[in-house]
């Protein structure tokens, strides 16, 4: 067993926290006690080697996609970023969090039949829904002021099985100024990659209120190399926020039309834009 693996129930005794290095999963299963135990054991077993597998190919994963990769998670990452790599620079790392969530959920489903389950990898979430069930997820639009701003209901008959959020103040770098871009897609990896791309596009190039620095000046090993990443965003006018959201929303519309995503919510300094064509599925409402 991997000695680094941290495994503990959260205080409610229902959600299992499994962590290895930068991978931080919160897993919850809704099923019989027996199936739950088998699924969680499978999740832990799978997690015991995931980080090692990824690190074995880390240098390739940090290069522009597509890459020829061996590990199952690495291949999920590569597959998720493939649709985006022809048009813009993207590395498989853009989908790492979502791909790990998908992989662990797949291992759980292979071990037991489950009614519902989710694997939440630091906000990038893989979902399982048996027919007739649904999940409601809370949304945080400003990562540096976390509060529940909206909620999102996903039914089993929708194609959505992944949710991911990207923003400039999150754990990963962004080339854009979105506080949060939350994307739903068929897998968590696909949502992760698309959220990264859309968040990069929410931008006001050359705006004096935006501070940027080469990614490697902050993290010497960043997959973004010397590309300028956002380090601070000063107050913006309403029209500037709308302008930035519009360029991101245009890209999201393209992805939606191409079937790469099922929806997106973009937020810049309390202004938001929603992109989706399934109004029934995404009853995205402002929280009271």
């Amino acid at each position, binding site marked *: 067993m991997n000695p*680094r693996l*941290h*495994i*503990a129930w*959260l*205080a*409610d005794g229902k959600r299992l926290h499994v962590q*290895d*290095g*930068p991978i*931080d999963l919160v897993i919850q299963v809704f099923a019989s006690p027996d199936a739950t135990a088998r699924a969680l054991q499978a999740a832990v077993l799978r997690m015991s080697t995931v*980080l*090692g597998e990824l*690190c074995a190919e*880390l240098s390739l994963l940090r290069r522009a996609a597509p890459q020829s990769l061996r590990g199952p998670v690495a291949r999920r990452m590569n597959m998720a970023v493939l649709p985006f790599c022809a048009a813009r620079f993207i590395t498989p790392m853009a989908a790492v969090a979502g791909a790990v969530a998908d992989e662990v959920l797949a291992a759980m489903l292979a071990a037991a039949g489950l009614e519902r389950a989710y694997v939440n990898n630091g906000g990038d979430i893989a979902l399982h829904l048996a027919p007739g069930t649904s999940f409601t997820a809370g949304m945080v639009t400003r990562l540096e002021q976390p509060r529940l701003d909206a909620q999102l209901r996903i039914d089993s008959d929708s194609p959505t099985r992944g949710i991911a959020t990207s923003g400039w103040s999150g*754990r990963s770098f962004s080339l854009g100024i979105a506080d949060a871009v939350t994307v739903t897609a068929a897998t968590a990896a696909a949502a992760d990659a698309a959220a990264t791309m859309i968040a990069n596009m929410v931008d006001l190039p050359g705006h004096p209120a935006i501070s940027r620095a080469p990614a490697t*000046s*902050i*993290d*010497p*090993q960043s997959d973004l190399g010397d590309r300028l990443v956002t380090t601070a965003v000063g107050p913006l006018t309403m029209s500037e926020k709308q302008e930035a959201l519009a360029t991101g929303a245009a890209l999201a519309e393209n992805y939606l039309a191409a079937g790469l995503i099922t929806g997106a919510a973009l937020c810049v300094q309390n202004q938001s834009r929603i992109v989706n064509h399934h109004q029934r599925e995404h009853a995205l409402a402002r929280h009271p």
Partner: protein
Amino acid sequence: MTDIDPSIRCDACPVMCYIKPGRTGACDRYANADGVLTRTDPHVFLGDTITAIGAGTTYPDYKPAPFIVSAQVEGVDMITVVTEGIFSYCGAKIKIDTDRHLGLERAAVRAGGEVVGHVTTAEYGSQMLSLGGVHHLTGSGKKSGRVTCETLLTLCNGGAVELSIENGATLIAQAGAAPIIDGVPEQKMRVGCGSATIGMFAQQWRGLVDEVVVVDDHITGVLSEHQAGKLLDIQETGIRIQGRRSTPGRYFEVAAPGTGWGGTDITEPRQILGPFDKDHARPGLTMLMVSTTGEHAGYFVLDKDLRPQPRAMPAPLADAVALIKDNCEPALCSVLFMAGAGGSLRSGVTQNPVRLTNAVAAAIVRVTCGGAPVYIWPGGGITFMVDVTKLPKNAFGYVPTPALVAPIEFTMPRTDYERLGGHMADVRPLAAVRGA
């Protein structure tokens, strides 16, 4: 270019982040605080046991230990008393897997020019150092104490330190890594002394070579004279070894200690040989000379004047040398942290310190260090040793006293804790410390 990259490399997980000063790694759990890899999360949980890393403490410990945690384990209400102990009486025992001569017994060991310890003895295939201890930490001047504290902290937290031994070697030591002696990383531990090597491999050499000399600083072995050779009917070769003969085929002091062949100072193995005896030697006689790790080897054939001349080693004999090498374990440097839990630390745990000592001695209370098992020395007090590689990284800290801060946990059934005079009012359920 005098620019030094102030980034540090985190080795807590295989991502191996380079972390810039003031930044955290990919996990947000480790940061570069003024060049020191530092944990940023307050507690480390190992399974259902909380560890003391990050618990914080007070000095002297007149208050209850910062966390006294209660967790339900297999139906038994377990108590873990968690504290970070401040140890003025502490040090590190270092085992360096090498036969190379590092320095004489009692030779001073220096770091950054300050004496931080000394050479103690040799164990099988290893040299032993004692670093730190109360006399170095608080008894020999301010600078010496500070450097000793830094050296211990680095070693215990898994870092590498450069040590120079008086009239001996300079080495780089790091727990779990190969020692680097005078700039050369040690590869292998010897499989045994020269005599033992003869005993182990004599069968393999039979028919391939007439004579084998295993060069070793401790006991050099000679196949034709050795008991193992006699049993295999190896003929006398007329070889003469310049050394002090112990028993047949076993020689002490063939050369001075050093970093050459088999822990001796020689680089030309023939210098340990005297002239061959004309009555038994013959031109064409073949001889293998090899070190105890197989790292050095030479093949020789006697010329018409009975002088050994180097020749290319036949392949089957090279295989036999490789077999010696394959049987040697990788050379490592291992570090045991050793410390004594004093009265004040114990009173942080219970109101009757001596009862805790007695309970530890009676094995009612389990002592762990950062969740790692410890060896408790018999006798009075709670003096323990722990393998620093078994603790999570950067589990050790320091105070300017100077003294090391190390996690220590005492685990016992709740009823026993009550009986020991435990601070029952301060017991908190595990969930409350862990938070949501």
